[in-house]
């Protein structure tokens, strides 16, 4: 599924299954699972190797050293098994994967050293294993990387040292064809698993980015849809109900005036029913993501309420403090997760329990019973709130980590800007890599040249010459990178590593383990840039080069290897190995950090997005609950009282009708103001007129609207303008007197919106200035913000009042 085909809106019900499936597919993998799969593969390989060594020992090789090799293989195998056990430790042990990988790496180092002692020809291969161990740091959290890097560096150095200085002995007693074929197959297997780790890292990077982007898209779509839905429900449903209720009250008043108490009572009864229906509608609108219980009382009471309300109740236990509150996004995500799970449960199960705990400061929920599946939007919410779900023996488990990323690290930017797909930061990493690569080359060149001069060794001089070529190629790679020719850059890097690996190994075979490591570098550098196929191509090519390098190293027929003093090899080889391996480690750490930083940024942006829309949603829901809903409840109650007393106390009932109509007008004004405040898009492009007409309809006085605005007025201008006009109309209704009529004029001229609310009512004496109680202060505040102004004028008592305002429209529109 490509991101372009992702619907931007809320998925239609029929899409839900496919969308859920694709979400599951794109879900970034669990690092523990990845580590487990990798270690398992390694253990199987080690077991096979063990069998092979035993077969060798009993058939072909008559040397006691083979048993040292056998013992070494056991160490490797045990390391793998121990690592698996560490991983399988009970959940909640926070350091499982780190320790597992360290145990595995220690096994590799011990086994590798033993192998290198017995079979120095194997050293390049063992170095490659160390490379794989280094790669594993991408699976580790920051604090656990150093030990892992230290173990791998130690392994690289010691293997390189042994490969360089130990005289081959066992190799002599093994038939050459056997050694070569076992070696090659082992090499392919090791290379393959190193490539698998690299590919896994690459896939993870891509998946995380794509996933975050899709989640952001979907959330934005859902938010927009939700807003439209609420806006429609309020403007049409609720407003219509309130108007009809008012009509009914007019009827009640008429019947009361006509002395027909029974009909008045019947109509009032209808009114009570209508009010109750309106209340139901309102409650549905206001009861979206945050039921009142969650908003007011927190997670534990809200989940208990959910469990109790289910057709078959769920038992809810909580060890949280009674008034424990979590961040709003965590509460909302958790609530909708539980709600999805228990409302989707179909079959009957014995156990229906939900438990809430907070071990080690992290929120932990377990839902055990016949559960349904969380909806895609719930999964997105969980994602944005950094919640992790898994299932464990029929129970669904949700955890939120204790470490809340602090608010300050979250950039205030939008998701669009914060889901980066450009490889700028990746190229910075490669740039740094090449910079260090060049420094290493120069140091190596200096050291080799000095040694060549001192020992007058021809091979060392040739190595120095090769290093010059390498240096040139690295420089060319840097230039290609600056020109953003990444493909060319990789070609140069591949050429560079092939040249140095092949030539240097041919000259000084004992250094094969270092050159083997160098050969693996392009694979690492290619990670962030290439697609899977290209990555495979680089893998195959570099593995082939590595095979040749290793075979040269094994053959040991270097041109003049014996000329190089053993001391030079003993110092130089491990030093070079550590240098190269450190470069590998540093680059991997950069790549991982960058990937993590990208994911963190995206997540923070998502979180901001969700929080912002939730806050708004919550404000709407609270306003509805505290405003319109209370009015409607009051209306329902009073209609009931009206119905009861219309026949017995008609005069009191008539008074109540008048009072009640006033309340309803207030309720409608509140809903209008809420829609205006919460949904500025109502005022986008041409809808300013619509908003003004709505306010006019509500003011209760005969109103003429002259508003020929078809030009586009940006929402940030239209909103305060509409607000001022609304308030102006309300003021006219309050102060102008019942006989007054009102005219509203809105026009766009000279780059500004000019508006006027004029009535022909009581007015005021201009000498006294504008009277208090018109809320003029708050109106001019609003106008000031957008660079406009507003005045209240009157030509004198009895000659009406005019509210005149002007709001400039920014030129770029």
């Amino acid at each position, binding site marked *: 599924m490509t991101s372009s085909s992702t619907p931007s809106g809320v998925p239609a019900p029929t899409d839900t299954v496919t969308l859920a499936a694709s979400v599951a597919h794109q879900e970034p993998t669990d690092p523990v699972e990845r580590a487990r799969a990798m270690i398992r593969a390694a253990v199987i390989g080690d077991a096979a190797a063990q069998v092979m060594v035993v077969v060798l020992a009993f058939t072909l090789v008559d040397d006691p050293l083979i048993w040292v090799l056998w013992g070494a293989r056991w160490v490797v195998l045990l390391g793998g098994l121990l690592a698996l056990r560490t991983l399988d430790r009970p959940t909640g042990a926070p350091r499982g994967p780190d320790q597992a990988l360290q145990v595995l790496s220690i096994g590799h180092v011990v086994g590798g050293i033993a192998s290198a002692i017995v079979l120095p020809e194997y050293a390049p291969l063992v170095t490659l294993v160390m490379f794989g161990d280094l790669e594993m740091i991408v699976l580790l959290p920051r604090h656990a990387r150093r030990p892992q890097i230290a173990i791998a560096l130690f392994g690289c150095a010691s293997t390189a040292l042994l490969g360089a200085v130990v005289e081959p002995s066992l190799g002599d007693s093994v038939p050459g064809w056997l050694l070569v074929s076992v070696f090659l197959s082992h090499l392919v297997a090791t290379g393959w698993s190193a490539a698998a780790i690299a590919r896994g890292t690459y896939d993870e990077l891509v998946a995380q980015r794509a996933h975050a982007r899709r989640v952001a898209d979907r959330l934005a779509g859902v938010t927009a849809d939700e807003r439209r839905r609420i806006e429609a429900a309020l403007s049409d449903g609720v407003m219509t109900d309130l108007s009809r209720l008012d009509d009914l009250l007019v009827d009640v008043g008429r019947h009361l005036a006509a002395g027909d108490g029974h009909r008045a009572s019947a109509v009032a009864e209808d009114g009570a029913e209508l009010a109750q229906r309106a209340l139901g509608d309102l409650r549905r609108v206001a009861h979206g993501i945050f039921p*009142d219980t969650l908003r007011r009382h927190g997670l534990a*009471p809200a989940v208990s*309420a959910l469990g109790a309300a289910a057709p078959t109740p769920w038992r809810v236990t909580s060890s949280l403090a009674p008034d424990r*509150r979590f961040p709003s996004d965590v509460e909302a995500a958790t609530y909708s997760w539980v709600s999805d799970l228990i409302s989707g449960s179909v079959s009957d199960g014995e156990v229906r329990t939900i438990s809430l705990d907070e071990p080690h400061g992290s929120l932990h929920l377990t839902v055990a019973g016949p559960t349904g599946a969380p909806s895609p939007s719930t999964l997105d919410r969980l994602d944005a709130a950094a919640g992790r779900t898994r299932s464990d023996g029929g129970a669904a488990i949700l955890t939120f980590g204790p470490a809340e990323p602090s608010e300050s690290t979250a950039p205030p930017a939008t998701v669009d800007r914060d889901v980066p797909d450009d490889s700028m930061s990746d190229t910075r990493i490669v740039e740094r890599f090449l910079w260090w690569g060049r420094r290493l080359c120069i140091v190596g060149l200096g050291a080799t040249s000095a040694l060549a001069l001192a020992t007058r060794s021809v091979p060392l001089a040739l190595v120095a010459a090769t290093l010059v070529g390498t240096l040139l190629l690295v420089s060319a790679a840097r230039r290609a990178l600056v020109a953003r020719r990444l493909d060319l850059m990789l070609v140069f890097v591949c050429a560079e590593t092939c040249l140095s690996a092949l030539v240097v190994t041919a000259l000084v075979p004992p250094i094969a383990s270092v050159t083997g490591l160098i050969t693996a570098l392009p694979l690492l550098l290619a990670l962030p840039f290439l697609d899977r196929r290209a990555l495979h191509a680089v893998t195959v090519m570099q593995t082939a080069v590595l095979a040749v390098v290793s075979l040269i190293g094994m053959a040991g027929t270097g041109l003049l290897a014996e000329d190089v003093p053993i001391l030079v090899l003993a110092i130089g080889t491990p030093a070079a190995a550590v240098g190269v391996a450190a470069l590998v480690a540093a680059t991997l750490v950069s790549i991982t950090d960058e990937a993590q930083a990208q994911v963190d940024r995206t997540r923070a942006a998502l979180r901001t997005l969700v929080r912002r829309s939730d806050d708004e949603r919550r404000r709407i829901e609270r306003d509805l609950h505290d405003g319109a809903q209370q009015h409607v409840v009051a209306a329902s109650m009073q209609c009931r009282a*009206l119905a009861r007393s219309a026949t017995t106390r008609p005069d009191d009932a008539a008074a109540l009708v008048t*009072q009640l109509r006033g*309340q309803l007008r207030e309720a409608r004004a509140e809903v209008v103001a809420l829609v205006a405040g919460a949904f500025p898009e109502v005022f986008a492009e041409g809808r300013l007129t619509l908003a003004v007409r709505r306010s006019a309809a509500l003011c209760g006085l005969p109103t003429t609207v002259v508003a020929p605005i078809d030009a586009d007025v940006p929402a940030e201008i239209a909103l305060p303008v509409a607000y001022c006009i609304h308030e102006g109309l309300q003021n006219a209704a309050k102060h102008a007197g019942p006989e007054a009529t009102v005219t509203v004029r809105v026009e766009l001229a000279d780059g500004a919106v000019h508006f006027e609310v004029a009535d022909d009512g009581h007015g005021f004496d201009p000498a006294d200035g504008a009277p208090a109680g018109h809320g003029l202060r708050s109106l001019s505040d609003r106008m000031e913000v957008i660079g406009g102004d507003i005045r209240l004028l009157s030509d004198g008592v009895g000659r009406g009042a005019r509210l005149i305002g002007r709001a400039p429209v920014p030129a770029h529109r």
Partner: protein
Amino acid sequence: MGDDEGVHEVTDAPLETIVEVMVVDDHPGFRAAVRASLALDGRCRASLEASSVAEALSLLDQAAHLPDLVLLDVNLGDAHLGAVDGMRGAAMIVERHPALPVLVCSTAPLHELPPMPQHAHVTFSPKELLDGDVLVDAVRRARAD
């Protein structure tokens, strides 16, 4: 108001006096509506009004005589700003005044609310169904206990 009591078809014998109700709700509009409805109904009277549990408790402490019933909204203010919700408020009121019946009410259904205190004098009614009958019934049940 004897003639009013006679008109309504009340299931039980009429109460002798007007039921005095304390209305606790943070929305003045709602309190006004209760006041108006009760005035029209005639059997009850909103004798005391409070906007929070704390205010209600102190009014009860100062009152020369207790009302016959406390009508208490559940969602009073923002709980995380320190406001006591109506359910906890009901528990506090019946603890101090065990004989005083408390009718908690809300626009939300009971199962969406915090647990109601287990006390014979604490009962619940949806807000939109409140009327003289409901209030009088609550008082009558409490007196029957």
